[in-house]
């Protein structure tokens, strides 16, 4: 009798979209939340702030992008794009974290790129790699786009390098995102065949908040608040489990106000609208990637403008975004150990 009843329960649940695994699956089952809470306790928010300032200073001294040499049209003030001087700042911070920065140069007559990476090698599954990445090329001396993302990855490198993890964590700084995701596309194309990508976490703008009603533009069909004081986390079918874990871990840590959105994996108008940053080459290659952002020009009037300065950064959003970044990177890397 009870067997018949449970069969009917299963049938009714399946019929009405209440599949039982959805009720029993715990996204934090394999994650040591207490240990991760201890890890994020090492975050130094003043250092994150200082890293943004250091990037802004470097970009200010930069000569700018040789746009006339390209001979082609690159949108949105390409002559104001800077990406050279800041490389030394990134290298310096990685070395201070005890990591060894590596530069991956790709010669090209128009768009040569230099991606910077540093590995924290995994102890038990070193060929499984978690990527945490941000682009370092910016328009003008942009503090938020993407000084905020780079600073969060640098802080992740500093904090996480004090621990051990099952998987390798690869800290990546992409070049030439702003002119067409060039650095990240080359990074994906050159992915070593002997390594497996567990997931890539891509940060692009995590520091701008607006607190008034109506400050957040929401495209049709999307469900999100109209107050722009949250971070958005985008995943697709290949990374929806990671998004679910990130959402659950964020709730457990109460790190930041977070909206998590899972988009279709196949080509569609909805997905095309969300392929504007370095997660897109991963998605297009069928690789798992998650994108964390303050949604950029859907809320920020300083987007790609000289007014993207450090005084526009929201300390609380930046701190919460950094905490979430470090927490989910640690969780996906299988640690700390």
């Amino acid at each position, binding site marked *: 009798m009870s067997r018949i009843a449970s069969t009917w329960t299963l049938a009714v649940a399946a019929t009405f*979209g209440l599949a039982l695994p959805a009720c029993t699956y715990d996204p934090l089952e394999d994650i040591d939340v207490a240990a991760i809470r201890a890890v994020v306790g090492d975050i130094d928010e003043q250092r994150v702030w200082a890293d943004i300032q250091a990037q802004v200073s470097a970009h200010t001294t930069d000569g700018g992008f040789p746009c006339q040499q390209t001979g082609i049209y690159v949108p949105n003030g390409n002559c104001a794009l800077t990406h050279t001087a800041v490389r030394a700042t990134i290298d310096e911070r990685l070395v201070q974290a005890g990591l060894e920065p590596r530069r991956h140069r790709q010669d090209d007559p128009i768009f040569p790129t230099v991606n910077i990476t540093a590995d924290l090698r995994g102890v038990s599954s070193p060929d499984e790699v978690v990527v945490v990445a941000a682009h370092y090329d910016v328009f003008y001396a942009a503090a938020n786009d993407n000084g905020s993302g780079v600073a969060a990855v640098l802080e992740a490198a500093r904090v996480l390098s004090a621990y051990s993890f099952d998987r390798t964590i690869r800290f990546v700084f992409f070049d030439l995102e702003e002119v067409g995701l060039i650095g990240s596309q080359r990074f994906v194309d050159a992915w070593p065949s002997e390594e497996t990508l567990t997931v890539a976490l891509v940060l692009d703008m995590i520091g701008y908040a607006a607190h008034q009603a109506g400050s957040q533009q929401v495209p049709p069909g999307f469900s999100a608040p109209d107050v722009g004081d949250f971070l958005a986390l985008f995943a697709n079918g290949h990374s929806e489990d990671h998004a679910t874990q990130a959402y659950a871990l964020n709730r457990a840590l109460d790190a930041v106000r977070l909206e998590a959105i899972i988009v279709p994996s196949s080509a*569609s108008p909805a997905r095309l609208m969300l392929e504007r940053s370095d997660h897109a080459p991963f998605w297009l290659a069928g690789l798992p990637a998650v994108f964390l952002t303050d949604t950029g020009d859907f809320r920020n009037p300083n987007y790609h403008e000289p007014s993207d300065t450090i005084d526009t950064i929201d300390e609380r959003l930046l701190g919460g975004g950094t905490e979430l970044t470090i927490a989910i990177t640690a969780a996906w890397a299988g640690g700390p150990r």
Partner: protein
Amino acid sequence: MRRLTRPPFLAGVLLTACGTAGGAQIALAAERAEAAEGPASKEHSVGIYARTNGAVALTPARTAGGAGGGLGVRDVFRDWLILQADVAYLFGIGNLGELRAGAGIQLPGPDQTYQPAASLLVSLYFGEQLRFLSEEHPRPVWDPAVALGVELSPLRFTSERTRISVMAPGLGLVLDVPTVGPVVQLTALEVEILLP
């Protein structure tokens, strides 16, 4: 006569499923050629239909929908009770399947040609969609989305072997326990062949 006209009739139905309005004209032309064969049974009038349609379902946990088309089967019992089921492919937000089943009534028009109808439908939407995590839904909602709704067919015309409906709107609710949201449907064109 049957052997000659049935292929263009079916072609017309299939063209309609592909969004070609001309398919309806082909189907009607073929139907006129077959009219001499006599009326279908009044007890059960069974037909297969093709339709072009769109739908969007919005809840706090998901947005699903798109435009496309599909095929279905319908039985009209004693000229008033409708039983139907259909399947469609929709594209827009992602690749989405739509499966509907339901019952309704049709009103006999003054000349038995104009027959507006209303149906109560259960719709299942399965496949790619936008899904949102929230306090109420900390995990992605599962396929399929289940909707209960009403479809009205105010512009529905029946002749001897063909039934055509245009611009039939539908409205309902998607159940994403503990939340609900609206589903809006529109069948732009439906062409049905009545089986002998």
